[in-house]
């Protein structure tokens, strides 16, 4: 936490979570998550399956509604508007508006199968931001080039490998010029030889100063690219800090136990 506190003095955090609670029915998935992510920071979330890390990520762009605590992105509460000491639920349209600035990449890619790679990337800028098609197309082609898929723009997702699909999905999210990118186990559904190409794109993105929250099992990526690493288990943050320190010298027995299994 010390590095974060030092950074917090100099700048305003982009994402602030305070005691975030989330339950599905009687199952409490998040039991008070505290977290801060500074602009330009790459925050990695690590933990066993069922630890709540994906749920927490989905709360950040309001794909899940939180039941308690506070969660804000760029100074705006997620899903609510505050007037005085009262909270008002945002309307669907306002929620959609807030999501424009947050890109999300899913474990299962979720590309639109009825559209080519190019159309997948163009869709949101044209439909949501109202860009003209020509401009959106040029920008989409540039983005596809950037993720190494300039020559695959007219392919449908079913004609692309998993790694290529995930890179298109990253380009699709970037087309909205997000301030924050959320990655939900972006390489977990990939064949091992395809993981590298997706991590390379994410590495470039991090080097370019993008703020990223990455739920991952790629310890190597977390150590090399991550600015912070947060280890979660059973809905709570067990420990967090600089990735190298947490990985080399875990303080908590649960972290030690988990790392010994995945390293």
């Amino acid at each position: 936490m010390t590095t974060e506190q030092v950074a917090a003095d100099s700048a305003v955090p982009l994402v602030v979570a305070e005691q975030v609670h989330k339950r599905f029915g009687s199952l409490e998935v998040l039991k008070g998550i505290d977290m801060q992510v500074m602009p330009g920071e790459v925050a990695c979330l690590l933990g066993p399956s069922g630890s709540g890390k994906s749920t927490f990520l989905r709360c950040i762009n309001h794909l899940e509604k939180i039941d308690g605590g506070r969660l804000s992105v760029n100074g705006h509460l997620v899903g609510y508007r505050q007037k005085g000491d009262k909270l008002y639920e945002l309307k669907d349209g306002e929620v959609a508006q807030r999501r424009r600035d947050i890109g999300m990449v899913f474990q299962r890619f979720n590309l639109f199968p009825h559209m080519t790679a190019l159309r997948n990337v163009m869709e949101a800028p044209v439909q949501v931001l109202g860009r003209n098609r020509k401009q959106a197309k040029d920008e989409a082609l540039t983005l596809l080039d950037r993720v190494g898929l300039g020559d695959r723009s007219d392919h449908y997702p079913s004609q692309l490998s998993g790694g290529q699909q995930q890179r298109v999905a990253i380009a699709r999210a970037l087309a909205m010029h997000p301030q924050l990118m959320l990655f939900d186990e972006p390489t977990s559904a990939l064949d091992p030889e395809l993981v590298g190409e997706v991590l390379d794109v994410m590495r470039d993105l991090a080097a370019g100063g993008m703020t990223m929250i990455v739920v991952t099992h790629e310890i190597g990526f977390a150590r090399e690219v991550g600015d912070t690493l947060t280890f979660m288990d059973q809905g709570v943050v067990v420990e967090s800090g600089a990735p190298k320190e947490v990985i080399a010298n875990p303080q908590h027995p649960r972290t030690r136990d988990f790392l010994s299994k995945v390293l």
Partner: protein
Amino acid sequence: MTTTEDPTVPPRDAPVPIKAIPQRHPWRWVSAVVLLLLAAMLVNSLLTNPAWDWPTVWQYLFSPQVLRGLWLTVWVTVAAMVIGIVLGVILAVMRLSPNPIVNGVAWIYIWFFRGTPVLVQIIFWVFLGQLYKYISLGIPFGPQFLYFNTTELIPVLVGGLLALGLNEAAYMAEIVRAGISSVDSGQTEAAEALGMTRLKVMRRIVLPQAMRIIVPPTGNETISMLKTTSLLSVAAILELFGTVQLIYGSNYKQIPLLVVASIWYLVFTSVMSVGQYFLEKRFGRGTSPVGRAKQKANLRARREGPS
């Protein structure tokens, strides 16, 4: 070696092809002979039994009276399906709405229109004028501004069309709902995460993908509708069936005239089946085997082209 570098060219020392005696299918031959025999008997009876009365069939097949009835059948089918599909999509989206009032209205609509016979609904619409002589617009329980004579506002044909269309909407709603539900929820999440509104997600992402599931049963419904229009004959609407009924009512040649109607129904259901094939291909882009085979061929051509 060039053979190992290019996988599309078979290596020179190709493995010896397998020579095996193919499976025999004696029962296919037996069944084909039996069917041919039965078909020959059928054709024979069609040609030799005078009761089929082919000259009369031929006489009426293209008669202006029958063609007028046919035209009415076709456009009523199309119009009723348009009403059914448009209203059906709206009802399906309403059914999936989180708003309980919107959802409930759709539920009641489907419950009612699916739960009563379409024949009863046709008669109800056609005779609406006996139930409500006037229809007026105004303040509920207060003064009324506009009065319409019901039978003038809804002539018999419009009533019949409304009955078919509104009834169809209830069935289409369930078909569309099934299609929407078949689309992976990850698609909605991805679209919402990009900042799309619910309506845009539905229109741009979910419905186009749902079409793959919606089109085949909709083709079914259209074919069914073509034949259901014959029920309008009870309201003295002279569509195809009503027309031939009218004709055989005066000349008593029931069989040949029913053959005339059947031939036309078959012709149009066949045409619709062809249309359905092309629609399925169109909406299978990126997923259907047909579409994919074509895309693969394109890919191959592109890959081989420049090299």
